[in-house]
């Protein structure tokens, strides 16, 4: 891991893992600013569970131990059809549709198979599905939480296809430490699904992801826009009213607007940010009874996908 900067001492997230009724995790209710966009940026630094990175035992990976323990307690429900990961399973087909939309921009040799890196893979919902696709060569899936990696590996063993060769490799590591763990360093697709909203300083995190992206490859993710609507749906309704996800899963203040991501991308010399060719965004809405639906324009108010291409 050559060019780590101090700023990269960030909390590697374990993704939005809605999971079982977590009793162990103490919700951090006090720090949540319940309304008002104005509070947003300033209150970011006041997150209670953002323990000082300097005190972490693993200074280079700076994995947040509070979050790791949060997701440890939720590990068992990853593959429960009626558990709290259900919404993620239901969203998974859209992830593939969005990746296809991005990569279909250019003409590709169908024989050329892709290498995927899934960051914050959790129990492996996306990683497994990517590894089954006929145009995928390998999937490397990383997560810093040991329990979820154990769950992912256990589930991998129930499908002989996923045990073939290096089709699917789980590693318990952060992106900063990937170089030490993974034989593969460069990828065609790097995915960050429901990850960046858990990150305090997304810019350096994204920059360290880019180091592993092949020229011409795509950095693809999904997250939530920071709006009153997303506060209402993902914090108030999902966590407090319906209890679909455990309290404290999300910090609304860390939600990111698509425009902020695009501004970051524009600042990166190696990224292409022209509409369609290098920058893609897709807003999605969960409609109870119908599932996740693409809704044009909704990216600026709630859940959305983004994709940005590395020049090459």
């Amino acid at each position: 891991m050559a060019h780590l900067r101090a700023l990269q001492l960030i909390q590697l997230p374990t993704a939005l893992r809605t999971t079982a009724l977590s009793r162990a995790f103490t919700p951090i209710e006090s720090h949540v600013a319940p309304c008002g966009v104005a509070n947003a940026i300033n209150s970011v630094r006041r997150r209670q569970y953002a323990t000082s990175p300097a005190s972490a035992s693993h200074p280079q990976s700076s994995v947040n131990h509070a979050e790791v323990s949060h997701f440890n307690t939720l590990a068992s429900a990853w593959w429960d059809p009626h558990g709290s990961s259900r919404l993620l399973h239901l969203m998974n087909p859209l992830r593939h549709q969005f990746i296809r939309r991005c990569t279909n921009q250019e003409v590709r040799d169908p024989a050329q198979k892709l290498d995927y890196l899934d960051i914050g893979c959790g129990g492996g919902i996306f990683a497994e599905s990517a590894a089954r696709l006929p145009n995928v060569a390998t999937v490397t899936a990383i997560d810093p939480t040991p329990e979820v990696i154990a769950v992912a590996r256990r589930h991998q063993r129930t499908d002989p296809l996923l045990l073939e060769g290096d089709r699917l490799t789980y590693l318990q590591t952060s992106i900063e430490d990937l170089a030490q763990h993974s034989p593969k360093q460069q990828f065609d697709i790097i995915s960050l699904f429901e990850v960046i909203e858990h990150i305090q300083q997304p810019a350096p995190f994204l920059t360290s992801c880019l180091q592993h992206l092949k020229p011409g490859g795509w950095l693809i993710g999904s997250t939530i826009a920071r709006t009153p609507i997303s506060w209402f749906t993902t914090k108030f309704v999902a966590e407090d009213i319906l209890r679909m996800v455990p309290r404290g899963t999300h910090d609304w203040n860390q939600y990111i607007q698509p425009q902020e991501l695009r501004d970051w991308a524009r600042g990166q010399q190696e990224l292409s940010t022209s509409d369609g060719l290098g920058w893609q965004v897709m807003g999605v809405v969960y409609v109870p009874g119908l599932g996740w639906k693409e809704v044009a324009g909704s990216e600026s108010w709630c859940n959305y996908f983004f994709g940005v291409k590395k020049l090459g």
Partner: protein
Amino acid sequence: MPSPALLKRLLALPPSLRRSFWSSSATAAPAGKPDIYDVVCVGGGPAGLSFVSALQSHPATRALKVALIDSQDLTTSRTANDAEKYSNRCSSLTPSSLRFLEGIGAWEKAREERTQAYHAMDVWDGVSGSKIHFDMVDKQSHGVLDSIAEMVPGSRFQASRRKYETSAEDGVVATMCENSNLTAALLQRLKDFGAGEQLAQVQMWDKTKVDSIDLGPEAVDEKSLDLSQWPIVTTQHGQIAARLLVGADGANSPVRQFAGIPSHGWDYNQHGLVATLHLDHPFTASELRTAYQRFLPTGPIALLPLPDNKASLVWSTNPQHAARLKQLSPSDFTATVNAAFRLMPVDINYMLTPSASNQAEEFAWREPATPASSTGLPSPFPRITGVQEGTVASFPLRMRHADTYTGHRLALIGDAAHTIHPLAGQGLNLGLADAEALATQLAYGMEHGMDIGSCWCLDGYNSERWAANNAMIGVVDKLKKVYSAGSGPVVWGRSLGLEVIDRLGAVKGAFMGAAAGTR
């Protein structure tokens, strides 16, 4: 002497985790590693074969490793070449079933000269004589409902009509086809997939009995493959593990029993009697044909057209009458069938009492005494002149519906999922619709990297088909019950119903849309 490794593996198996059905070999731990298949379909009837053909015809599911197991010899299910002889097992294929069969390239393999489309349907009440005539004109007329539907943008009614109108330009209500003709066409299609198109051929194991279905062994250690939640099918060809086990294995489905899925319903205390009949005059291929159904208190009797002067009989009646009918000589049988369409219920009942004999003579003198206007007999109604030897057969009628069509690594299609009264001729059509829906769902799953045996992939199939089938089963069951009444208010009510429906073209159109399988 088994190797130490094998011994270790055998010891690692907890038998408590393995369910099994009927098999005596269930206690024996599976030895060795089973072959792994993506789809194992048990049952090579129309539902199973069309499901496998549909998988082969879709690019996303074409590469799946598929095995099809059937206890019968599938190579013998050829259609007779003799244009004078027709099988007594025929089905009325709706336009949407035909669209599906055309889409998977199977219909072109069917012997078209042995199929017969019909363009109208006459239904009448055996007690009151009130009747209803269905034809395509009803479906195309624009009535009040259309006007309302047009005001509601995107309404389902409007969409279904539009779909219907494009599908039925030729005015076909349904197409009669021998089951053996359909099965042979599907088998031919599968053979061609394997040969001509350089695809992985479906592993066909016919004349193969399923000895047992168990769950797989526990993993040997923490690092190795874990098949403990995979169904393992044992046959004389060895053991195969199924990512998805499909039960297309009929009403007594062993696959459903393995899964422990309950199936609820009741017996109708009725038998379905079938036969291939000869009519008094031949029809050319281009003539418009009509199907006839009369509701008798003992059950509906239907005459469905086959090519030339042939027709298929489906008579649902009580077990005593069915037994009596099977004993009759061909001429007496023919006379009794004519009587069942033309005489009053009291005459028919008399002719089928154990003491009655010489039905041909009975019919000859009773018929002139029964004016067609009093029974509601449609004109022109063909006279039945004979019955093809050896085609009179009967089977008990039941209604059954499985609680769910899916489980972990398991799906049910066709009769394994539901058994329905034949009065609307929907049984096979529902099975084909299941096959189409499941294959479509698997293609979607493959395109999105799903494990096709998981609930994430199969839930869509269950939710799409269960409710639709439940509605159809319910309607047919209620129709059967309403028409079993021999007198009294139910008869007045249903007669009024038929008369009213007959006067409302648009309502009839909507009814026919459902009957023709428009979705």
